[in-house]
């Protein structure tokens, strides 16, 4: 069946597919919650000004200045040994990745909001719109347009970074491949399958992001 000899069985393929599913689930959950928190943090940071937002900025900056691997190990050690909670690695992984996503997302949202001309917002307010109306009907729709390409990049980045959750005992795609490699001793073939999976998801979406960026920057 294969174009060259491999000891890979159907069961192994199912095992790999499960890993791929885990990668997608962790990514989806983290991007979902991370984006919601990121939008909230981004608006907050913009709204209360740089001085009051300093503590939030500092905390979010920490997530971007420390390797994700260490964040995961640290969070896992804190929750399970320091607090003594019984929590699955999956939960820890999703929580850390969500916060990690929100740190980057807040930056993107803030950039998007700041790119909306302040005069436009003042015009909206002087027409009698409330802050909330201005936010929901004027500022956020425009900011979303500006932020979407970067957000797509972020979501793809999170998918690639989710490969690190193996460190809290979550078996995602790359880890399941590694387990099979240890058993089958066919590193090249298995790694290529993995790489192809990431590439086939990431490449078209990245292209779409690039297309939107070009299309929306010329008007």
């Amino acid at each position, binding site marked *: 069946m294969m174009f060259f000899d491999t000891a890979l069985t159907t069961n192994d393929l199912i095992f790999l597919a499960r890993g791929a599913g885990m990668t997608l689930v962790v990514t989806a959950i983290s991007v979902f919650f991370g984006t919601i928190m990121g939008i909230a943090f981004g608006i907050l940071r913009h709204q209360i000004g740089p001085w009051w937002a300093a503590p939030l900025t500092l905390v979010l900056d920490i997530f971007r200045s420390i390797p994700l691997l260490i964040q995961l190990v*640290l969070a896992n050690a804190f929750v399970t040994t320091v607090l003594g909670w019984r929590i699955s690695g999956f939960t820890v992984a999703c929580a850390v990745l969500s916060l990690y996503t929100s740190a980057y997302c807040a930056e993107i949202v803030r950039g998007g909001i700041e790119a909306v001309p302040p005069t436009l917002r003042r015009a909206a307010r002087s027409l009698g719109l409330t802050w909330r109306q201005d936010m929901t009907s004027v500022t956020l729709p425009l900011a979303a347009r500006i932020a979407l390409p970067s957000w797509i990049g972020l979501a793809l980045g999170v998918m690639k970074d989710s*490969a690190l959750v193996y460190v809290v005992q979550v078996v995602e795609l790359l880890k399941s491949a590694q387990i099979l490699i240890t058993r089958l001793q066919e590193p090249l073939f298995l*790694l290529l399958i*993995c790489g192809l999976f990431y590439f086939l998801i990431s490449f078209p979406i990245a292209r779409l992001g690039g297309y939107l960026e070009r299309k929306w920057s010329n008007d």
Partner: protein
Amino acid sequence: MFNYNFRWAQALNSLPRMLEGALVTLEVAILSMVIGISIAVILTLFRLSGSRLLSAIASTWVEIARNTPALFQIYMVHFGLGGFGIHLSPYLSLLIGIAFNNAGYLAENFRGALKGIPETQTRAARSLGMTPVQAFRYVVMPQMLRISFLPMTNQMVWAILMTSLGTVVAMNTDLYGVTSDLNARTFRTFELFAIAAVIFYLITKTVTLSARLLAARLFRY
């Protein structure tokens, strides 16, 4: 408050070893940036060359580097090349993996930067008698590097963070490797990794701040 005895003193005893690890981390990051920038310039030249084969090579490199996890790339260098009988040390695998990643991202940044440099400048340089290579070397490249200074700083921070991935190829001399080695012996996971996190934070902050100062100093008009 917690049902856990923090033993910071014990963990802090290992600080000198961890700082040595931090030096290795910094060394790998700097080397990977130097190699990455050089390759990215070459890839940019490939794209500008007009040769279809060369631009295809450059695009393939950039797309693979940007669309697969860095962890995968490091795996591939270590275990993938191992499949061909090329066995590299953990240090080299990590360095090559990160440099490959850097080159891909930086080449894309350079491409964006080139858009900000008018084509007419190249033509002017050519009509002054410069060869294409000279025009690139003396007119385009300095501006390209200047425009991409900020993305390059970001990439440097990424490179520092990526060194932690060396653990998958059994690298044990960098900051993450040293920390997890110590952890395997003492099991003070939280304390040790908290210290490592602080060191990483300080390193990345130092890099971004000094880059900002350098930019203010270098790019005054």
